[in-house]
Every structure is written in C-alpha cells, then in structure tokens.
C-alpha cells in the first residue's frame, strides 16, 4: 500500500502516464545552438526517475524539467558532457545513467555480448568438428517391409487393427 502511495506521489509529480510530449521547452533552451545540442545529448543519457523508462530529454515531469535546466546551467558554466553527467550521477547514483557505466559490477553486462558471440563461434566450431559420418542403414527385412507398408496404409500397427477407420 505504501508503495502504491509513493507511486501516486511520483506520478502526481510527473504529468501522469498519459504523457503528452512537450518535453524540452523553448524557455529552457540555451541560446548557443552548439551548447544546446550538447545539453540535449546529455539529457538523452539521463533517466527520468519519476517516469517509467524515459530520458530526461523526452519527459514532461517536473523533475525532468529541473534536471534539464540544471544540465544547461552546468554546460553554460563550462562543464564537459561527462562532467555534467557526473554532477547528476553524484546525486542520484548510477541508476540515473541510461548508459550503464563501465565498472566492476557491469563487466558481465558490457562483456556479455562479446562473450556470447565467442560462445556461438565455439559452438559452431565444435558442431562442425564433432560430426561423424552417418552409417549407411541396413536394407529392411521382409517382415520390416510388411510393417512399413501397413503403417503407410492405415497409420497404426497390426496390433490395433480393430480401431482402423476411426482416424481421419
């Protein structure tokens, strides 16, 4: 129940999930187009924490607006993109970054795809190496040929002839 209330609070803060999109507002935008473009890039790398899976650049939430304004201040004050991101990350933790940082606990994440490709390549190698020549099957005996013909005819073995005709 508490969790539900908190979610309500967060959604009240956001513009509800029926999110209309007027995210970056003209009054937020920096006058210098190069700096504004950088601010947009940084905004795309930050997660809106009160939304469900949107970046700060895309979201209408008040918190997203505040963070966009803050990012623009930092960039206008001379921060690089990385420094602006670090500023927000220092306050909210790694979760706010949409691009997971390269560190010990994301080694498996970033290394995973390469490892998977390697595993696929090894599997293919083992597959091609490990196959033996298929043995040539012996010809069928007379009894086996008779059973084969019956199977092709009625779909059942002679043992169950009493039930022929109930299929199909």
């Amino acid at each position, binding site marked *: 129940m508490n969790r539900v209330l908190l979610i309500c609070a967060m959604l009240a803060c956001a513009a509800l999930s029926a999110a209309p999109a007027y995210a970056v507002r003209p009054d937020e935008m920096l006058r210098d187009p190069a700096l504004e473009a950088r601010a947009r890039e940084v905004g795309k790398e930050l997660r809106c924490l009160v939304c469900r*899976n949107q970046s700060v650049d895309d979201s209408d939430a008040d918190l997203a607006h505040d963070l966009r304004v803050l990012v623009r201040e930092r960039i206008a004050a001379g921060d690089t993109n990385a420094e602006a991101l670090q500023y927000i990350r220092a306050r909210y933790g790694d979760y706010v970054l*949409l*691009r997971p940082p390269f560190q010990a606990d994301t080694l498996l994440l970033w290394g995973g795809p390469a490892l998977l490709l390697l595993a696929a390549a090894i599997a293919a190698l083992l597959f091609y190496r490990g196959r033996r020549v298929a043995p040539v099957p012996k010809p069928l005996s007379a009894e086996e040929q008779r059973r084969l013909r019956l199977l092709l005819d009625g779909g059942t073995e002679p043992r169950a002839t009493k039930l022929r005709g109930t299929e199909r």
Partner: protein
Amino acid sequence: MIDEIGHFALVLALCIAALQASLPLLGAARRDAALTGFARPAAVAQFLFIAVAFFALMRAYAVSDFSLANVAANSHSAKPLLYKLTGVWSNHEGSMLLWVFILALFGAAVAVFGRNLPPALRARVLAVQAMIGVGFLLFILLTSNPFARLVPAPLDGNGLNPVLQDRGLAFHPPCLYLGYVGFSISFCFAIAALIEGRVDPAWARWVRPWTLAAWCALTVGIAMGSWWSYYTLGWGGWWYWDPVENASFMPWLIGTALLHSAIVVEKRDALKTWTILLAIITFSLSLIGTFLVRSGVLTSVHAFASDPARGTFILLLLGVATGGALLLFAIRAPSLAGGGLFAPISREGGLLLNNLLLATACATVLLGTLYPLFLDVVAQKKVSVGPPYFNATFVPIMVPLLVAMAVGPMLSWKRGDLLAALLRLKLAFLFMAAAALVTLAAMGIASIGAACGLALAAWLLGATIVEWTERVRLFSEPFPASLRRAWRLPRAAWGMTFAHAGMAVVVAGIAGSSAWSVERIETVRAGQSVELAGYTLALDDVNEVTRADHTALRADMRLLKNGREITAMHPEKRFYPVEGGTQTDVAIRTDLLSDFYAVLGDSDGKGGYVLRLYYNPLVPWIWLGAALMALGGLVSLSDRRHRVGAPARRARALAGAAAQPAE
C-alpha cells in the same frame, strides 16, 4: 446473469482442458484411438467455452455493466463504443482472458485444420496445448478473475486511460497475442516430438505453417506498437528498448531463427536438436515476457499494475512449462538421430550462421533487460540499462547478419562456393556502392553513418533481386520463359523475396530516420510561421473544441513548400475530465518517403503556443518494410505444400513427391 454464464464457462473450459491435457497423451502412448480421438473435439469445445466467457466480458463492457469490478475500473459510459469494446484487453484481467482465448483458438485451429498431421502427433500437440491452458485458466480463475463483482455497483466507471483511446492501439494487443501465444503451437510440436523421440523432415513441414502464422502476427503487432508510439507519444521516437518492447522483440528474433532452422530440418534433415530447442525457447520467451509485464519486477511504461502474488503464480507456470520442457529436452534430445552433413560454407551453413547471430542478438537483449534485476538481487545495487546500451550492442551483431543474409540464399546446399556466390552478386555490390555514393554526395561527408546504413540496405535489396532473377532465369532464358517460371514459382519462394526485401526497406528506414531527423521547438503566435527542412508551417489559429468525453485545444495550421500549400494540419492537446489526463494528438503529414510531424504544446500565457516540429526522412519505410515482411510471411503461408500431409499409399506418395521439387 450473462456474467455468471461467462464465469461458469471459464470453469468448464478448465475442466475440459484438464481432460484434454491427460487423456490424449495416454491414448497416444497406448495407441488407443478413442482416447487420442478425444483431443480434437476437446480442443474445439475448450475454445467455444472460452469464447463464451470472452464475449460475455465484451458484452459487459459494451453495455457498461459496472457491477463487474473490471468494467468499473477500466471503462466509462461516455466512451465511444469502439473503446468500450477494446477496453476489454486494456487491463490485466481482460488481457489474460484474451491470452487464453487466443491459446484456445490456436488449439482449435490445429484440431480443425491439422488434418494432415498424424493422429498421435496431433493428439500430443493438443494435449500439451491444453496443459498450458490449464495453467493459465487456473491463474485467471484464482488470481485475476475478470468476472469478480463489485458490490454495490458504482454509477459510472473510472474510464480508460486517454493514451489508449486510439484506433491503432486498440488492435495492437490482439495482434501481438496472436504472435506470442501462437508460438505456443511450435512449442507443443517440439514437446510432442520429444515425447515421440523423433524429429523428421515431415515434422518440420507440419510445424512451419503455425510458426509462420504466429511470426506474421508478431511482426505486424510489433510494427503496430512502434508506429502507435511514434504518432501518439509525440517525440518522434519509435523504439525505446523498454523492457516490455524487448519482451515482444525477443520471441520475434528467436521465432525468425526457428523459421530458418526448420528449413534445414525439412530440406536436409539436419539441425534437428537445435530446432527443437528454438521452438521451446520462443514460447518460453513469450512466457518470460508475460511474467515481466505482470509481476512488477521491472519498471516499464507498459507494465500493468504489479502484484507479487500474481507474479509468483506466473513464475510457477513459467517454471513448470519452460523448466519442464528444457528438462525433457535434456533427457530426450541426445537420442535424436543426427542428420545430414554439410560444409560450413553452404546454404545450411548460412542458415546456421543466421541462427547463431539471431540467438546472440536475442541473448544480448535479454542480458540488457534482465541485468538490472540480476544485479539488484545479487548485489543490492541499482543500475539502469537504457537505449545507449542496446544500440551499442545490438547493432554490431545485426550488421554481419544483414551482410550474410544476402549471400546465404546464393549458396548451394551441402557445399557452396563462396567466391562464385559473391561474383554472382555483382549487381548487389553495384547497388551498395551507388547508395553510398549518392548519399554522401547529396548529404555530405557527415552522413557517413546513414551512408553505411543505406549501403547495407541496398546490398540486401540487390542480393534479393539477384536471387529472384536467378530463380526465374531472367537473363539466361527468353523473357516469356522467365515469366512462366515466375508464375510457377512456389509461393514460399515469393515469400522469401518479399520478406528479405522488406527487411532491406526497414534497414533503410532506420538508417535514414536516425541520421537525418531534424527538430525545431519554437513559441509561435497565431499568424506567424516556422520553417523546417525547406517546409513552412503557418499557424493560423488555435481554438477550443468540446467533444463527448474530452475538450481539446486545436491548432489550425497549413504546411507549405515553396509557397505552395500542401495540406492543413491540426495537432491537438486534449484534456479528459473523467480520467484527469492530458493527451496530445500529433499531426503528421506523410508522403511515404518522409514525415512532417507537428505537436502542439503549452500556451505561454501571452497568446503564443509552443510548437515542436520534426522532419523525419525515411521513417515511413520502417513500417512499410515491416508490412512487406509480414506480406512475405502470408504469401509463404499460402503455399500449397504446407497442406500436403504424410504420404500414405503409392498414388499419394507420387503426388507428394511432385509437390516437393528439388531445390
């Protein structure tokens, strides 16, 4: 009264499903035709009962029967009829009912149209299908009953989320479910084959149409969802790598791999174990998706209200179905006989490469989607994996696949000549070079990314065309003879051509829209205009409009190019009083080559309005390409060869042989 009937019908369906899950299996093991024969009528009966329940719920929505808690929570008397009806699946309980409805629909379809299947196999397939049905019907009846009453009934309901009140979105869930849930049949075929201990080319032929049908539906469903989010959510994006989007994309990736590997089983009796595994994994991914969306384990824009009790039940279902299937696989698969040999460079080798790359791509998406959960459980650390990760890892895996996709069909079976194949692809190389040069010339050196993407698309399209011309011997035989060949081409061949061409179009759309989309955000007053990408958008007026269940701010705008008026555009911002939400209605003008996209924002209080404009070149090709792929799938599905069954006597065996020309 009808609601009670609906509820009771679900219970009856559960009973039938339980019988259907057990008796035919017994019958198939004992070769008892009466028990095996029970499967078909049971599957049809199960479907009919679930249909009764489903339409009972739909009727409750249509007449606004607020005595049902589900209707009260998700509908409102002022809603247009279309949204009342489609509101049935806009919520957890209703969509679960849709899920089992489609599950039973596919079961009934196999019962009715699966006449070409050997009875024992069909019985086993229907039995496994019923097992899944039992699991989900229990889930619905015990934890998510749409027929739960609300006493006293409220005078009116809570309404439907305005974002969902859209014609396009209304049909997205049924389409998606036809896909995801449809793959359950492939899963059942795989389990049936493992139980029988035999996978042969005939099995691959029988499983193919069902897999194709599900794949087509899923392709359309995903494309529809992507298109909807593009024109509704208002920031011009069409894919967010949201966990729920990923949950539908992963079965698509493995389903595509399955379609291709089944070809190898059918034509060369090889890769059997792998194909069985893929069939199990495809549906398992659907189940995992269902779990992720409904358990609250991941946050997502799409997730239904989360409930750990439901989550536990679904996890149990997942454990039994997937765990059981994979265990059965571990036990029985080693005894499946190995098949035909082939060289690494060959058609089969190409298909195997396709499979490995698709599986790796899917595993990457799975890793990215589940990693935050994994880290939280193991290390109590929260990390977030967003689009930058997926774009950085998924794309590099897909590129070699797209390159190989062009060469694969040119190789012969068993042992192919790579150099000869590449030489025959001269036209494709030409297309690729032309696309790259034209792009760089027209858009400048900064467009190198788009140039690569378009070059890749051109390569694939060129190769698809070359392959088709070779099949009809366009340049080696006189034209009428080629035309006759084209007419006689098996539909599966046309299907492949369309599907691969569709993929090329999608890649072009993605490359163009990612590289060349431009945006402009301005505050504009009535009478002013804005310029973007050579177009002028004039804002004439903004008015308030009142409609049945919402009020809207509607802008009257005209789109001009070189002074000539092209069209009027009317973006809106709507306010829904019942639900209390706001919704933007984006105005898009498309010429199928690009989109001009306008969003009306807030008023600045001084007579000006914020306008967000986008010019998105090649974006429509994403959905046109997907439609072409789905068309390819449908064309392939209509191939007569899918309806040829097991050869019975000499006469039928001859007819069968004639219908399977050597390729």
